Each structure stands twice: as structure tokens, then as C-alpha cells.
């Protein structure tokens, strides 16, 4: 059983939902990422989505664009991101880590080499936002052979028929993007999300994480009512921007937000 499956099974048995924070690797500086990952776990994170910096983050709003620019100012590469995960694994062998990013850095490294090195580093899943299932037919088996789950996105515009075929290729969990837009967009509508998840439950048994528009404990708890996991990104990354010269303050603020969400979700 993969770390991701094990984590969702354990949560389900305990009647709890997964809290899945996103941070960009290397933001605001490479040295901050490892302690921040451990902070997230200590504050109540169940799975970590670690962003691979990319020069052209087409699906991201300004908050995560700037995070990537801060990381790229330190020339943080995919190889360094893998090293960070390997280092994280020295102290944490249980918390699943999903790499999230865009395809070109992976393509440039080569799919075979990436799959091998990611698995060796202790990565559990890969979510490349610009790799829809149609283009992933050769990639998914390569990842699977190394024990990596391929996480795919589902959107408000995804039809039931399409969702079924996406979920057949996905493993670990699927990520439902709660609204049309980029990361960091405005608040989501929980009723809409609930309706869409009802449909998605008819086509898949995979756990469903929901992200985009989750800003605080209240929205996290509301989404946790209907989803298996709650993904939160921009509101955390915002703390790094707001404490640009003080990473320790950013870490504290991020931990506080995660702890609040954890409390609200478990209440």
C-alpha cells in the first residue's frame, strides 16, 4: 500500500479528513523549505504538496507566481526539490509528499530518470497541471512502475464521462479544482462543490481532494464535510510574501493557519 493510500485509509478509519497544504519549494529561500515541511506536519498536515518552481506557471495566480519567482531567484531546480524531499524523509517516513508543478522541468530531466529519482527520494505522487490524461498514457505506467501515484485534476467543466476516464488513470487521490480560474481566486461555493462531488462519487472510489478558494478554518471545515481532503495553498504562500524578510515569522503564521484549519476540520 502506498503512503498516500495508507494515509487516506487511516484517516477514514478515524473519521477524519486530509489537510493538504501546498508550498513552493525554495520559497522564500531553499533553507526554509525543510523546516517548513516539518512545521506543516507538526501543525496537522496529512499530505504535503510541494511545488516545483517553474518560469511560466500558466495555471497560477499572482501569489504563487511570485512564490516561484522568489524560488527561481535562488535557481531552485527540480533536482534540488528532490534533494529536499530526500532530506525530509530522514526525519519523516510517514507523511506523503506530492510534487506539484508543470511538465517542462520533468520533460527536460527525462521521464525515466525523473521517476527513478523521485521514487528514490521518497516522493509519493506527482501532479503536473499541464499534463491531462490524454497526454499521459506513456507517463502513468512509468510512474506506476516506480510506485508513484499520478494525481490528476478534475474541474467544474469536467463532464461525468470524462471524469470516469480520468479516474481510471489516476491513483492516490484526485484533485477537484473548485472553481474556474487560477490559484488564489475568490471564495468557493460549498453547495456547488457538494453537488459536483456527488457526481464524481458515482464514477470513482478514489479519495477526492478539493482546492482553490479555501482561505480559513471555516471554509476548510465546510469543504471537509463533503470532500476527503482539503488543499490549501495561496493563503499559506501569502504569509511568506507578507514576511519577506522574516522567514521565521512566516513559518509561525503558516503553522497557526494550519492548526486553525485542523482544529476546525476535526471539530
Amino acid at each position, binding site marked *: 500500500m502506498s503512503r498516500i493510500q495508507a494515509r487516506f485509509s487511516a484517516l477514514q478509519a478515524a473519521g477524519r479528513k486530509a489537510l493538504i497544504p501546498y508550498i513552493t519549494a525554495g520559497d522564500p529561500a531553499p533553507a526554509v523549505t525543510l523546516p517548513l515541511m516539518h512545521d506543516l506536519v507538526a501543525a496537522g498536515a496529512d499530505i504535503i504538496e510541494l511545488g516545483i518552481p517553474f518560469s511560466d506557471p500558466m495555471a497560477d495566480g499572482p501569489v504563487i507566481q511570485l512564490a516561484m519567482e522568489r524560488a527561481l531567484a535562488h535557481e531552485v531546480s527540480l533536482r534540488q526539490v528532490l534533494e529536499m524531499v530526500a532530506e525530509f524523509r530522514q526525519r519523516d517516513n510517514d507523511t506523503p509528499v506530492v510534487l506539484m508543478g508543470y511538465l517542462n522541468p520533468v*520533460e527536460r530531466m527525462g521521464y525515466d530518470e525523473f521517476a527513478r529519482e523521485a521514487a528514490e527520494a521518497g516522493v509519493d505522487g506527482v501532479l503536473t497541471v499541464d499534463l491531462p490524461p490524454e497526454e499521459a498514457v506513456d507517463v502513468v505506467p512509468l510512474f506506476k512502475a516506480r510506485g508513484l501515484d499520478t494525481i490528476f485534476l478534475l474541474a467544474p467543466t469536467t463532464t461525468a464521462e470524462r471524469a470516469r476516464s480520468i479516474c481510471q488513470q489516476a491513483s492516490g487521490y484526485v484533485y477537484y479544482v473548485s472553481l474556474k480560474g487560477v490559484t488564489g481566486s475568490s471564495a468557493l461555493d460549498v453547495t456547488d462543490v457538494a453537488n459536483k462531488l456527488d457526481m464524481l462519487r458515482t464514477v470513482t472510489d478514489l479519495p477526492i481532494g478539493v482546492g482553490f478558494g479555501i482561505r480559513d478554518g471555516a471554509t476548510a471545515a465546510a469543504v471537509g464535510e463533503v470532500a476527503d481532503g482539503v488543499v490549501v495553498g495561496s493563503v499559506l504562500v501569502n504569509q511568506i510574501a507578507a514576511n519577506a524578510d522574516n522567514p521565521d515569522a512566516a513559518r509561525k503564521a503558516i503553522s497557526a493557519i494550519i492548526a486553525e484549519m485542523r482544529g476546525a476540520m476535526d471539530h
Partner: protein
Amino acid sequence: MSDSNPIDFSAVPDARGHFGPYGGRFVSETLMDALDELERLYRTLSDDPAFQAEFDRDLAFYVGRPSPLYLAERLTQKVGGAQIYLKREDLNHTGAHKVNNTIGQALLAKHMGKPRVIAETGAGQHGVATATVAARLGLKCQVYMGAEDVRRQALNVYRMKLLGAEVIPVTSGSRTLKDAMNEAMRDWVTNIDDTFYIIGTVAGPHPYPELVRDFQCVIGREAREQCLTQAGRLPDALVACVGGGSNAIGLFHPFLNDESVRMYGVEAGGHGIATGEHAAPLSAGQPGVLHGNRTYLMSDEAGQIIETHSVSAGLDYPGVGPEHSWLKDIGRVDYVDATDDEALHAFRELTRVEGIMPALESSHAVAYGMKLAASMSPEEIVVINLSGRGDKDIHTVAGIDGISI
């Protein structure tokens, strides 16, 4: 070509938009349904004689087609080689080939009932062509343009404003065309219900490379017929500049099955390929994925897209249309480059010798075309695509001359 089985060029792209290993649809899930819808509509309309008639009518009476194929006699004499013909896309309404495509896509937007169109633009030619058709059809229009390009192309920015479009300067990344395209994609994913994204070149996710090509193929169809009529035979070589590559594919595609016709796509050599400061992914890049398609790109070892340089904003782009990547790999088209200096020399030469002022983009094709013609015999024919006129570049050239106007 050496291959004994001729390639069926009409069979690409395949059903999922692949040109060999290139092209495809690499976008986030939210856009997939809209791209499916666009593809379905395009399949229906491209077989519909009424739609084709509507498109042809607009090209004739609004754009002013056919554009002439002009024998540049003085330039031919001066170069002293093959006869040089210019395909005069610069004479189109709005001054470049871009309008062929925006007319077509605006008709698609109209058929889909979308009240708002968006576009990305580099030099501003595609933005102007989009703002123009939006004005004509009464569509709301917003154009994303890199802040650096807004500065370089002030004239076109004001033209777009006069046409009723809103120009949104993009300050992320390198502040040029690629960043404008990122921002247009972000807008589209947010406003997908009421917005049609008019992509300006033969790149982006399927079906854009195919439909933009189809709309631009009017260039090559006309040139082929005009050459047969005026010169009594096919040309020996075609030359066109390649940024994203829409004017080049428009000229080349209708000739692909004519094995005797050689083709040259001219990339922006900037300060010289060896300096690394250029915009020539086919000459010096490698395959990767950006803006919805797999194609040759300029990226570093880590897969980050690198900044490009060209004197012409319209060629200042790190990618290229996926069909060009495929045509390069199969050897049907030769991809070469012309530097900033060579393009500027050609700009001045054509202006003085023929009284035709080319866009700096097109000047790259003129530069290589002159060089090529000089190596050929007087019986041979070279067709150069003069994809746009140079009025928009007068400030840039004056600046290089040390004159502020």
C-alpha cells in the same frame, strides 16, 4: 526528399492534434472542455460551405485579398541571382498577415455566441488585428501585452485603444510575448463561459495550431496560383520568418506536396546564435512543453524557459508552432536564422531599392531571401513572404540611428 513513400501532409495533425511527437493539448483540466467544444465547432464549420464563403467574403472585401505577388525587379538586379517575388501580406488591412487568422477566429467566436474576445500580442500586430475584428463585430476586447513590448510598440498600443480594446500590460516574468500568453491563458480559464481566446499564432493547445494554419493557408494558396499564372511555373524556394510561425506555415503548407519547392523558415538570430541572445528554438533549442503544446523551446538544463532576444518584438518568443518542429525533424523545411543586424540591413535595403518598408519581423525573411537568391541562378524563383509593413518599427529603427522622433 529521400523517403520513397511520400508523406501525407493533409493527415497531420492526428485526431488529438499531434504532428509527430509535437503539438497535443497540454493544459489544465479546466480548459479541456472548452477546447473540445472549439474543436467540435471547428470540425463542423470547416466543412460548411456557408462558413467558408463567409470567411472568403471577409478576406476579399474587408482584408483586401488577394494580396499581390510582386516581382521585385530592382532588388533582383541588385542581388544578382534568382528572381525575387514578394508576397505582399503587408498590404492587408491592418498591415500584416495576422488579420487572416483573426477574421477566422472572430467568426468562430460569433458562431459560439461569445461576447468577449481576448488575445496576446508581442509586436502588437495580432493585438491590432484582434481589436479590429472585435470593433467590426461589436465584441468586447482585451489584449495582453508584455510591459516591455508596450514600451517598444507604443504606436500599436494606441491603435488598439482607438479601436476600443483595452490593453493590459503584463509585468510578470520577462514582460514579453510569452508572459502575455500566460496571462491570456489565466484570463481564459477564469472567464471561460463568455470568452473566446484568439491565439495569434500556430501554437497553443490543439486545435489552435491546426485552425490558425488553415486560416493562414490563404497566403500559400494564392501565392501558388499567382506564381503559376505570372511566372508560368512553381517557385524554387519559399522564405518566411518564424516566430510562432503562422505566416510561414500559411505560405509553406499549400506547397508541401510540391517536392521541387524548397522552403526556408528564418528565425531571429538576435546578436548571433553563438551568443545565446536570440529567439531561435528550432536552430538552438530542444523539445519541451509550453503554452499547451510540445515543441522546440528555448529552456535551460533545469527546464526553465529562458529569455529571448530579438530586435523585432514579434519574433521574441521562446517557442514555435509544433508543425514547424515536425517539419524540421522530417527535413521538409530548412530552418535558418538572420541576426538583428542582417534584418536591419534588409529593412533599409528593401525600403531604398523597392520603396517597400518591411516589418522588422519580415526583414529577417528578406535578409535570408536575398542571401539565398544570390546563390541561385537567374532562371530560378524565390518567393519571400512580406508578412507585415514596417511603419510600427520606425521608432525602433530611428532609435538605433540615434534619432528620437
